């Protein structure tokens, strides 16, 4: 179903860089990804109500789950998985710098909840 190519506008590609060579997501993929996203969100919510779950497990688990959601949306919905590596560089580079700065600010303000205060 519905894997038809976009018409004219995107078909004029000059020379070497034909980015979307690895294929394209289908409508089916989109619905599956959406279902997975909903499921992960439900798991995240449910995890809050599990009694006796150690804090470390909860925090790390939540971060991993949301990272998975992040990657799914960026990779599939935003087509970064299928698109030119130039786009990936433009987005992932700044994202890493932003995460680094958040972590540095947390460290400078002693705000890591998993570490003892005043580690610095």
């Amino acid at each position, binding site marked *: 179903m519905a894997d038809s190519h976009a018409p*004219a*506008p995107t078909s004029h590609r000059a*020379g070497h860089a034909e980015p979307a060579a690895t294929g394209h997501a289908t409508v089916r993929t989109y619905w599956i990804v959406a279902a997975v996203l909903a499921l992960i969100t439900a798991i995240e919510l449910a995890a809050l109500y599990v009694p006796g779950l150690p804090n470390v497990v909860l925090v790390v688990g939540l971060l991993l789950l949301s990272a998975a959601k992040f990657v799914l949306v960026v990779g599939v919905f935003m087509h970064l998985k299928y698109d030119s590596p130039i786009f990936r560089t433009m987005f992932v580079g*700044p994202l890493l*710098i932003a995460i680094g*700065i958040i972590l540095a*600010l947390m*460290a*400078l303000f002693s705000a890591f909840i998993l570490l003892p205060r005043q580690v610095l």
Partner: protein
Amino acid sequence: MATHAAFMPGVGSAEAQTGLWSWITTVDHKRIGILYGTSAFIFFLIGGIEALIMRLQLAVPDNTLVGAQRFNELFTMHGTTMVFLAIMPLSAAFFNYMVPLMIGARDVAFPRLNSLSYWIFLAGALFLHASFLVGAVPDAGWFGYANLTSPQFAPGHHIDFWMLGLQILGIASMLAGFNFIVTIINMRAPGMTLMRMPVFIWMTLVVQFLVVLAFPAITVALILLMFDRFFGTMFYVPAGGGDPLLWQHLFWIFGHPEVYILILPAMGIVSEVLPTFARKPLFGAPVVIYSGIMIGFFGFGVWSHHMFSVGLGPVADSAFSIATMLIAVPTGVKILNWIGTLWGGTVRFTAALYFSLGFIAMFTMGGLSGVMHAAPPVDLQQTDTYFVVAHFHYVLFGGSIFGLFSGMYYWWPKMFGRMLDERLGHVHFWLMLIGFNLTFFPMHYLGLIGMPRRIYTYAPDLGWNFWNLVATIGSFVIALSIAVFIANVWKTHRSGAVAGPDPWDGRTLEWAIPSPPPVYNFAAIPTVHGRDELWLQKHGDGHGGAPSPRPPVPRAEDIAAIHMPPPSYWPIVLAIAMTVMLAGLLISYTQVVVGGLATLYCMYRFAMEYHRPAAEAHS
């Protein structure tokens, strides 16, 4: 050259437009570059006059030329003007004019957005200077440390003008940043791979990444300040649990990359000027490029070295100290490469080359004092003294300004078709070099014997009198040198020698086309075979390789078929609407709402201006 099909409908191609309206509505990158350059030079003069008044005040002890409040306003506006309204837009003038020419393109990727950037920049600059008209000039220093800016300690609109002015200027810089990154990545002539890009283009690319990634930090810092001042939050107010240090962190997360935003364009210019006048390729060009990228990347990891004196603790101090010393390595590499370029070259000592040599020498001295206060214990002695003032003037004046003047002497013939007078250029250079060192070298000494920065006067018995007087004399020598430059421009305008397309036997593509270039730049888009494409076409690679093929001579009908984007008045209208909205924060919320709606409407019209016709170009 096949169909470079209908770029956009409307005004056709080659004929030059004249008159004021044509400048207001222009989307031609060359004209926008000239607009940036002219405005920036005027602000450079304003900032310079502010500096001269400060130097007059400090010439003798217990002087009463200006009072403490006026002095605060002078150093705040001097710093803000020189950073945001002089050096950045002077660099932007070269980005605008030269980037499309050097990559073999007809314009930037988004010509109207380019025009929008300029008009927002001008609106922000005028907004900032409107503070003089209402007598509420910003007075908290160019980095506006928290508490000096809090409502409690800064009543009135002084800080509001600064805060909103910088916010407007930031929008302009970021829009230009997106535009130039896309232009450099996507508009290069066929064959110009990344490693064949001229080094100036590389440095521009790094700078634009720094702009789009560093400005969000100051945007947020200013937004928080705005909430503190207008809506009663306590982000920077200790009484409410806030931490003034947060401002310092956010500001310097922006502020340190900003330092590289100011210096890397000059480094790019020098990397073009030296090979041209030494008639040798840039020594180790890939290493110069990698060093530029490294400087940009590390630039995000060193911000706290501006804050050693607040007591961050040994771990943070050590980390930021080490990162800061590391960043000196790629910088040193570049200096060695520039010297290596001159070594064994057939050097022609033009004014442009002199300014580049001045850049290398002065910037090295500024770099050395910079490495000194990378060490926290040393920094604690030097911070907030004239030693720091000396340091950053050696990198930003001895570095950026010398580099930018080198660019002016180098590219003036390309931009205006006439050669700047070489003899006056030499006079300008020597006066500026002597005046600069007379002004700023004594400040090292003044700082070390304890003179704090930002004091409006001092007692006569502190031993500071003599060197302060020397510095003041030096500053007037600098002013004289600038007068010589203005005279040179005037003389060149009246009776300068006609330049021709390639007066320096240049190496890069901009010298392959007439001076000044036609609206469409290149009659036929060139194909690129190496970093010094024009040199390869003229002389081969110097190792017996055959010269690159020259592009075919364009036919008249090819030129007639070139379509350039037509002028548009939406950029200036949108810039005005946006400024009205933000200025409303000082006047009335009705104005904010009206301005906001007008901004939305203008954005819509801007976006829809070519919606249908542009799309129909496909069919």
